[in-house]
């Protein structure tokens, strides 16, 4: 490997055959796709040479991808991207039974850095074990171990049980809960019992392989291309976190993303009552200040992070529960405001239970909200809900439904497949308020206020509706880059000018990365994902937002009357395609563009 900053090596595990290989990553691929989400998507493309592979089949790989920043103490760059073919998405006009998008989901914590310490640039798991297993990695030594006794265990208990079994607290691990084991499509992957690669059904794919967990511990670091330049950049970066942005640091340390619970509500951008409103009158009861006062005891950071946005404590009151993390903006909105739940202990209970089961709280909260609306509108009965009186704000009913979803019992079996499947079953025009794009539910940022940004952000994201996608090509490419180098978006504001991500990447690799080349790599990664989706049959009509946004006006708050103009949206989408260099009718990236981006291999 002449390229520095990497090992150039993937750990490749086939759970059907038990074969464990260390495979070389083509240097060209590292240069073009960097790592994390980008390199993961390229490997996914190579492993799935044709469309329509069942995401839950042994053939579908699941990739655990750190990036070139992972393991280095560059502040806030410890993310791990889980990449696979999505079990969540489907096109409107399905060209294949199993046509689905790429799925990438990102988590903080310590898992990604530890993969790198063990000497790998990523882990790729294919196949299906005949019984529950976990993978144990200590540098070069890799074992597939029996996990039968852990099967069925919630993530909170398992987090400790696994360390007990391994006998060494220095292992870092990621794992699924009962939801993933039960093949709940919206199941997620967690580490440290709270940090989740929440979106896109990654836990379901892991479950389909009978893979409970991966535990890893390592002793290595790769050589850098320009060690001295890296040290210089690191010193500057550390200084900028210490000196220049104290207000920013205070903000993150005080409330993490939960700071946005109240501010978003004030700005009318919150998902409230199944996205029917943008503001929640009782938001103060579950906001950051309330949590500081009543729940949070300690702040926790990911590897080498200065922000510490994860909050832990205990909730007491109507429910008693250990709080590992929450609410964040997303979890607090989706299980709180979106369901009109303002009982703080009740909200904490819902979040803790969902994390313990290992289910995507964004999608789960969205599905519960959808059913609440259908029930209020009397499109469904209490019998349809298996006896649950699913009224707005009802914590017990939400808990019961959540449980049924994770164990796939009766109504839960349908609800856990998401709002698209629910609307198909309920019919009666309920599709109009089924808040998803491509089958993947929207997150906690509501669309009508700032609709130019949010409608494009959700409509064009490659994993189905995604709030981290960005509402313009530039932002999207930058998000793809952050997910590829393993940097955290919350700290991205610090990395500019003389300590830009491109400069760090140059120092790490020893290759000169200009801003232009760096941005182009982001565009390349985004277009590769797009081509994956295009091959799977996704077209312009799939890049839309739910009809509710064109028909429903907010009735409450400062932004009363807000609605999305459909013509305006279609115009913006055409404009977006033009900026992207994509065909405005089919949404296909042009051949010239693909060639220019070194993606000629995607042209068929």
């Amino acid at each position, binding site marked *: 490997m002449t390229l520095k900053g990497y090992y150039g090596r993937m750990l490749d595990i086939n759970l059907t055959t038990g074969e464990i290989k260390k495979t070389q990553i083509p240097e060209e691929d590292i240069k073009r796709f960097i790592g994390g989400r980008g390199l993961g998507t390229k490997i996914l493309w190579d492993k799935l040479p044709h469309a329509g592979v069942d995401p839950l089949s042994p053939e579908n790989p699941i990739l655990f991808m750190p990036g070139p920043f992972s393991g*280095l*103490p560059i502040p806030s760059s410890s993310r791990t991207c889980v990449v696979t073919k999505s079990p969540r998405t489907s096109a409107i006009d399905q060209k294949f039974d199993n046509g689905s998008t790429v799925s990438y989901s990102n988590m903080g914590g310590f898992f990604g850095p530890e993969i790198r310490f063990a000497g790998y640039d990523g882990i790729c798991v294919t196949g299906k074990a005949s019984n529950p297993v976990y993978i144990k990695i200590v540098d070069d030594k890799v074992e597939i171990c029996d996990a039968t006794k852990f099967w069925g265990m919630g993530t909170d208990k398992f987090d400790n049980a696994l360390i007990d079994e391994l006998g060494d*607290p220095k292992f870092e691990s990621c794992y699924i809960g009962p939801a993933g084991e039960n093949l709940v499509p919206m199941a997620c992957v967690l580490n440290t019992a709270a940090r989740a690669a929440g979106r896109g059904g990654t836990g379901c794919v892991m479950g389909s392989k009978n893979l409970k967990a991966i535990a890893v511990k*390592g002793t290595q*670091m790769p050589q850098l291309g320009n*060690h*001295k330049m890296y040290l210089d950049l690191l010193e500057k970066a550390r200084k900028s976190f210490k000196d220049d942005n104290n207000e920013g640091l205070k903000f993150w340390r005080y409330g993490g993303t939960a700071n946005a619970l109240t501010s978003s509500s004030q700005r009318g951008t919150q998902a409230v009552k199944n996205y029917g409103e943008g503001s929640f009158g009782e938001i103060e009861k579950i906001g950051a200040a309330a949590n500081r006062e009543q729940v949070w*005891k300690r702040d*926790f950071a*990911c590897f080498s992070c200065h922000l510490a946005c994860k909050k832990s404590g205990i909730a007491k009151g109507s429910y008693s529960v250990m709080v590992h993390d929450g609410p964040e903006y997303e979890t607090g909105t989706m299980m709180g405001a979106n369901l009109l739940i303002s009982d703080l202990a009740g909200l904490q209970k819902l979040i803790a239970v969902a994390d313990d089961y290992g289910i995507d709280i964004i999608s789960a909260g969205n599905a519960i909200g959808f059913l609440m609306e259908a029930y209020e509108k009397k499109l469904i009965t209490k019998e349809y809900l298996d006896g649950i009186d699913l009224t707005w704000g009802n914590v017990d009913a939400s808990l019961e439904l959540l449980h049924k979803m994770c164990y796939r019992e009766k109504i839960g079996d349908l609800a856990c497949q998401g709002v698209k499947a629910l609307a198909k079953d309920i019919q009666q025009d309920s599709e109009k308020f089924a808040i998803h794009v491509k089958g993947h539910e929207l997150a906690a940022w509501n669309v009508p206020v700032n609709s130019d940004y949010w409608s494009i952000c959700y409509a064009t994201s490659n994993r189905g509706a995604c709030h981290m996608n960005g509402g313009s090509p530039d932002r999207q490419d930058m998000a793809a880059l952050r997910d590829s180098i393993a940097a955290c978006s919350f700290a991205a504001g610090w990395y500019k000018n003389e300590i830009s991500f491109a400069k760090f990447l140059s120092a790490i690799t020893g290759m000169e990365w200009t801003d232009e080349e760096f941005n182009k790599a982001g565009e390349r990664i985004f277009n590769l994902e797009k081509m994956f989706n295009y091959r799977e049959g996704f077209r312009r009509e799939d890049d839309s937002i739910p009809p509710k946004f064109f028909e429903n006006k907010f009735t409450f708050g400062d932004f009363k009357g807000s609605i999305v103009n459909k013509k305006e949206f279609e115009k913006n989408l055409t404009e977006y395609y033009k900026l992207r260099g994509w065909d405005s009718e089919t949404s296909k990236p042009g051949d010239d563009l693909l060639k220019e981006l070194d993606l000629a291999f995607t042209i068929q």
Partner: protein
Amino acid sequence: MENNSNYSRRHFLKDLALGGSGLIILGTVGYKIFKSSDGKTIKAISVDFEKCTGCKTCETACSAYNHREIINGEELMGLGNPHLSNIKVFHYNPDVDVPSTCAICPDAPCIEACVISPDLITGRKALYRDPDTQIIKNDIERCIGCMQCAKACADLRGGVIIPNPETHKPERICQLCDGDPQCVKHCPFGALAYIEVAADRDLTNLAPAKIAEKLIEQWYNFNA
């Protein structure tokens, strides 16, 4: 960061008794270069567990300073491989992080346990206290790698000493980075401090698991 330099024995005992934010457990160092001006207290690395967020920046800073690399003939800081760090952060669930490092104990059970006979001239075992700095050092020429020191540390203190995987000789004994501990310097949260503490403080409950148990009881107590 608050100024802890006048941290007295009375404060320390009070904090221990209350289990409050001043729960400071680790460290003590020698009187020569690290002694306070009045000679009554000594300086040490201490941990404020309520401020620690578990980010492990201390591990990377320790490792970078103590494991340099020669790049193009120039000695530079290392990359900060946490595996090589003397200070270790242990995660626990419920959420507690415990940084653990050599306490440079005044009574040093590790030296006590060293099986090598004292040198006739210097009076030193393989493991000895440096007379100038009071730091505990190991003479690898004389050390036979029996790891009795590690056993003593594990049984009686924090269990920080471990064998080097290749030489099988003890590692992780804090050398205080030439008087400027890097873990303290780089902690983003001010959780580590290099301050004066009472010389006769309790050093018997340094095991990370024990500390975690105590903190979990304090922080996540539903009956409190």
